[in-house]
């Protein structure tokens, strides 16, 4: 019997499966890269003696069959142990704990900013004339297409170096967050605004909007009270994907703005083949992705009552079948 609790339980279970899959793929990929893991442990530029090599191999269990290594690794993961960083010599969890906060601050502010920008531009331009929409749509396309590192560099050049409006680098307070967050948010806002406006326009053609207008409701309320909620569902679905994709953006942004954070740690770890750190960050982003989508799956029924009574696996509600009435258009 499908109940809401059962729906949530199924979603959670699916999330666990996704995480396990991500862990497995990460493990396999990192062990398929090739090269001797011992070299990764001792670091570049050092040639270990055979005895040290043997000692490391035994300590890390590199001589065990792959399946055994996988089992042990998975077992440690379940126990919450992410391993030790080869390069930094500290527990991975401690490394991440230091770096999670700035990245979260960056990602969350970017998401919020992108959401607000998208809603404002979409509401302001939905149902408008072709000129306004063409201009705004072109601007959105531009911010989506421009590489964010380039936008970031431009922003730094003018706003920081020339006009000294914002700090150049670092993680000191809110002012330092503005440029990175805007740079990260712009392409996301562009995509969300495009989708939101399209679904707003779609909603505005529905017969219920005509009903609302015949009640004498002002156009601003038609948009905000009725159409926005209909249009929000595809956007919320997309937002789940956006959260997952932000980490990739964070790698670039943190490098350009010289901010501390997971992105830079990831970059360094990949460069030095610091396997435990890379695996942990991949898992963390998979977890973030899963959580975001779980949230989406919970928000969508809140937006659309039709999804509450029959929790279906699909997220978008069935479009009402519009009988093609031959009215002159």
């Amino acid at each position, binding site marked *: 019997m499908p109940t809401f609790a059962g729906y949530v339980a199924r979603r959670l279970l699916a999330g666990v499966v996704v995480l396990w899959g991500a862990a497995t793929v990460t493990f396999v990929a990192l062990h398929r890269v090739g090269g001797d893991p011992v070299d990764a442990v001792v670091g570049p530029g050092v040639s270990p003696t055979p005895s040290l090599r043997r000692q490391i191999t035994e300590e890390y269990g590199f001589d065990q069959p792959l399946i055994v290594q996988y089992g042990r690794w998975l077992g440690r993961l379940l126990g919450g142990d992410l391993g030790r960083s080869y390069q930094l010599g500290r527990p991975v969890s401690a490394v991440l704990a230091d770096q999670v906060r700035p990245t979260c601050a960056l990602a969350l502010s970017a998401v919020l900013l992108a959401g607000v920008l998208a809603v404002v531009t979409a509401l302001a331009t939905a149902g408008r004339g072709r000129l306004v929409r063409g201009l705004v749509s072109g601007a959105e396309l531009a911010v989506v297409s421009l590489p964010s590192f380039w936008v970031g560099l431009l922003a730094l050049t003018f706003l920081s170096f020339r006009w000294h409006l914002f700090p150049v680098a670092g993680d000191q307070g809110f002012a330092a967050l503005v440029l990175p967050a805007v740079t990260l948010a712009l392409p996301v806002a562009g995509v969300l605004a495009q989708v939101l406006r399209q679904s707003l326009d779609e909603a505005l053609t529905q017969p219920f909007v005509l009903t609302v207008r015949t*009640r004498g409701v002002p156009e601003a309320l038609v948009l905000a009270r009725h159409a926005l909620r209909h249009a929000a569902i595809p956007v919320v679905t997309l937002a789940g994907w956006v959260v997952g994709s932000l980490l990739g953006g964070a790698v670039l942004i943190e490098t350009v703005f010289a901010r501390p954070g997971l992105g830079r740690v990831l970059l360094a770890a990949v460069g030095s083949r610091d396997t435990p750190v890379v695996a942990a960050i991949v898992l963390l982003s998979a977890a973030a992705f899963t959580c975001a989508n779980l949230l989406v799956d919970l928000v969508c029924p809140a937006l659309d009552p039709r999804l509450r009574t*029959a929790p279906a696996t699909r997220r978008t509600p069935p479009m*009402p*079948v519009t009988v093609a*009435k031959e009215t002159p258009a």
Partner: protein
Amino acid sequence: MTAPTRTEPAATGRRARTPLVEIAKLRVDFGTGGRRVRAVDAVDLSVAPGECLALVGESGSGKSVTARALVGLAGPRAHVSCDRMLVDGRDATRFDARAWRGVRGRRIGFVLQDALVSLDVLRTVGAEVAEPLRTHAVVPRGRVHTRVLDLLADAGIPDPARRVRQYPHQLSGGLRQRALIASALAAEPALLIADEPTTALDVTVQAQILDLLADKRAGGMGLLLISHDLAVVSRVADRVAVMRDGVIVEQGPAARVLTQPEHPYTRLLLAAVPSGRTRGRRLSPGPDDTRPEEPTHTPRPGSDPTSVTGPRRTRPAHRDTPLVEAHAVGRSFTDADGSVRDAVREFAVTIHPGEAVGLVGESGSGKTTAARLLLGLVTPDTGTVRFDGRPWSTMPERARRPLRRRLQVITQDPLGSFDPRWSVGRLLGEALGTVGVRRGAARRERTVDLLLRVGLAADHLGRRPATLSGGQRQRVAIARALATEPQVLVCDEPVSALDVSVQAQVLDLLADLRESHGLALLFISHDLGVVHHVCDRVLVMHDGRVVEQGDVDRVFADPEHAYTRTLLHALPGRDLGPGASPAPPPPPPGVAADFLSFRRTDR
């Protein structure tokens, strides 16, 4: 007429009954420059308090656009102009957006067809009904909720306290439509514009809605009813305006227009309405079709193009061996909440070659499930279905599949049953392929042949379903069904979405196919007139059971079961058309009172 000044309506005198809305020479164009299309041309109309004007016409005739122009909502691409437009005696051509908003909902209420898409499905019924109250501040905020409950109760919705918190999709079609009407009536408009308010509703529900509207009119409300259903119009309207291609071709008192029509188009519309009286006759005129976009018919020997209805058909004689035999078939389904529902119980039917068997009943009565059982798409829990003397329902699918071509189906919505990316030629070619017609010249020839048989032409081959009109689509669906040369055609509401003249053509086509090919029909419809016209025998279903069956004339003239009588009584406009008997329907028997006096019992 009064000049567009703001004179007090009382000054002209109450007895003169200032029209609630009056419009002269309304023109509506769509598009710009050279591609301008005139949707409405020189339309004059007015509605007085307590009066019902019905605007009648087929899809695309401009009815809806006219109605929307009356509330200033013809759309951003519409160019509206008129010589005079008065709302409450005020000049509406000078209204700005704010003045229009004051009129909408407050002075003129608007009800659209199909409440599921006309209500905001993401908001509760209560929020929707409350919206006009809040918008126009009709009652103080604190009293909105109680007012909404009153409005829902007035609209005949039982248990309003529960319904007010529900969402449109949780309500049945009839309740939804009543909620929509309640929201349109919330701010007590002087005029209600109802655009196809009862289309797609069951007859008993339709009767309830029409009663509700009649009640409101008795209270002085004006009603502009837009409908393609002449039966509904005949029951409700004081005056009728018949619209065609954006022009009102005839306007006058309902009794006169519907019984002694002057314009040929009105006569055509009336003649196309199927009923018991039209049995065995053609509904559509001959090759001189009045709708240019519809194709010409295949020439029929014996059809008389001068008379509106053709000669009476001869019915094919039945052979003795039945094609389809169902015996005590039952099927239940488990609902989402875990409860088990008997969709069909103890269903039995026999269909002989060339016979047309009707299946009537309201939505949810099990008609479609019964059809799916016969088609072998649903396995019965109990009972058996035999096809052509062989066990059908118990046959393994592998053995049944080669025989399926002999049983075909057409549905209400052919568009949904087509792949929208496929051309007509490919759709028909696929069906021919399943019966072994090879690709190439032979298949193409057969495809064209099929199109000709349903009254289409070879130039439709390359068209996609979306570019066809409703009637053409249904013809393609029939052509596809005929591709496999079936013996039985199951028609599930085949004409419900069609205009009356197109419906007439499709019904004539089905009758022709019966005659020429001995095709047997299982004809499912909620339209009793259509069933009476088409069928030899009829089965009346209610709550999954067949409550009555027999010869169609006998059942409709002398129903035995109380439910059949209820259905027939709820049927509007039984005295329609030229030469109709003016006798009113008999008073309802005991059971009918439960259905028809719902407002009095539920209040």
